[in-house]
Each structure stands twice: as structure tokens, then as C-alpha cells.
């Protein structure tokens, strides 16, 4: 069973940009992202999030998001996905960076979650 990360942002550039920071420390962690609406505008899309879950090579995914509707669309995609999806209400960058570094080091999920707890902001 592998663990991967999915990033969801309202802004396509943010969603595409954060993985650049993460791959520096987590080259082997499966990483996918969903940014913006279907039309590439600012917002979130359940279809794009579902696609990012499907495209992720891992069968268990830690998901990080920026604001409001991203979480709602994430939860709907989570309900429809066959994979196990964990959602974290952390600061997006710090949360995803923490998870990426620890997963790369082979740290078990429970310990990763422990490290994420103080980063919860929403």
C-alpha cells in the first residue's frame, strides 16, 4: 500500500506550483494536483479533483486544500472515490510540505498525522 499526496487550490498556478516545492524533498511520493474550475478560472472542480485522485499512483491519498469550496468539492470527490482519502485542515503549504517530507522518509501515516495536528488552521 502506497501513500500519495493530492493538492487542491482555487488557482491553477498555485496547484501546479506547490508540487515543485514538494518534489524537491519528496521525489518518490506520488503527487497530483487539481487547480481552478473546469474552464481554468479561479475556483474548484469536483471532476478535476476526482481525476487527480485517479491519476495518483498511490491507493491511499493525503489531500491538502486552500479555501472553502475546495474542501466541499474534495469531500464529494472523496465520497465517490474507491481510494482511501484523508483530508487535512492544515495550512496548505506547510501541511503538504510536512507530509511530503515525512512520507519520503518512510514515516507511518499515524506519525505523519501527529506532525500535521499543530498545523491545523481551519
Amino acid at each position, binding site marked *: 500500500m502506497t501513500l500519495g499526496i493530492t493538492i487542491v487550490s482555487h488557482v491553477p498556478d498555485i496547484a501546479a506550483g506547490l508540487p515543485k516545492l514538494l518534489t524537491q524533498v519528496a521525489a518518490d511520493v506520488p503527487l497530483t494536483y487539481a487547480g481552478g*474550475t*473546469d*474552464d481554468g*478560472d*479561479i*475556483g*474548484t*472542480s*469536483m*471532476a478535476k479533483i476526482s481525476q487527480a485522485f485517479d491519476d495518483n499512483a498511490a491507493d491511499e491519498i493525503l489531500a491538502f486544500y486552500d*479555501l*472553502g*469550496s475546495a474542501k*466541499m*468539492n474534495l*469531500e*464529494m470527490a472523496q465520497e465517490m472515490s474507491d481510494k482511501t482519502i484523508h483530508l487535512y485542515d492544515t495550512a496548505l503549504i506547510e501541511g503538504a510540505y510536512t507530509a511530503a517530507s515525512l512520507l519520503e522518509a518512510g514515516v507511518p501515516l499515524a506519525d505523519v498525522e501527529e506532525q500535521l495536528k499543530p498545523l491545523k488552521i481551519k
Partner: protein
Amino acid sequence: MALTVDNLTEWINAFAQKVTDKKDYLSELDTPIGDGDHGNNMARGVKAVQESLDAKAPADLTAAFKQIAMALISKVGGASGPLYGTAFLEMAKKSKDSTEIADLFAAADAGIKKRGGAQAGDKTMVDVWEPLAAKLASGSLTQAEIDEAVNSTEEMIAKKGRASYLGERSSGHLDPGAMSSGYLFTALIETEGIL
């Protein structure tokens, strides 16, 4: 009086018309306390709903509610997409064992609260859905009651959604999602034969 695919379609078309007519106003309401896109989001959503219903006439109420929900979920793009989408999905589920308007709206209201985590008083569409679903359960709904629910959001301090980042400064503005929800209820009471 009963809900049918025909009068549901009429109701939704009336809602779509109001949203389209008030698109700029809804986005204006979203500007001081949000990102100014609510009218555009909703107009895009209701257009997709109408296209879906035109392309494929639903076989029954459950199918109709589901089509409406899926169009909103896939096209709105903002928080109102999953929220309205969940409301109609919950109505689709409920419609399998009841077509009573009161039952359908109770299910929708519960769905919105679950999806967004907001409660009454948080300055969101819940401040319209919760009291008006209760009015429907008691058997009647008037435009004055709809206006009262929408207007009640003006003085509230937002606890959910984009407006919540403004804290106390969110007070003094109507909530855009409450206003668009008001249109849905107005369209409902204006459609002959449902209530």
C-alpha cells in the same frame, strides 16, 4: 397539489430566469464580502441545468433532481456549487420515498449544513434554507417570510465561507448565497400547483 417533473421544471426555469436577470446584482453583493463571482457562478450553473433538462427530459422526479444537482456540481465552480448540488442530490434521494415538498426541503437543508458545516446565524444560505424549510413544513410560505430570512443575514457576522475572513467587517452586507436562495424559494411559491 403535488410536485411533478413538469412543475419542477417550471420552478427551476423560473429560478434560472431570476438568477440570470440578477446576475450582476448577485456578484455585486459578493464583492464587499467575497470574491465577486456569485452571480456569474450561479448564472453558469443554471444555464447548465437548463441545457441538461432540455437535452434529456427526466423520466421521473428522482432523475430530474439528480440532473439538476450534477449540472450545478460540475458547472458552478464556487462554494455554491457543491452546496446547491448537495441540496438537490438530497432531494433526489428523498424523492424515492416522498414527494412532499416539506420532506424534500428538510433533506436539502440538512444536506447543505452537512456539506458546508454552517449553522443558522453564520451568515450563509443556511439562514434562508433552515427557516424557510421549517415554514414549508408548517404548510405555508410567503414572500414576506422569504424577504425576512434573506434580510436577516445583513447584520450577521460571517462564520463560514469567504466572508468569514472579514470577521466583524462582514456585518452590514447581505449574504449573496442567501439572496440567490431567496430567488429559489420565490420561484417555488410563484409556480402554480406545487404548494
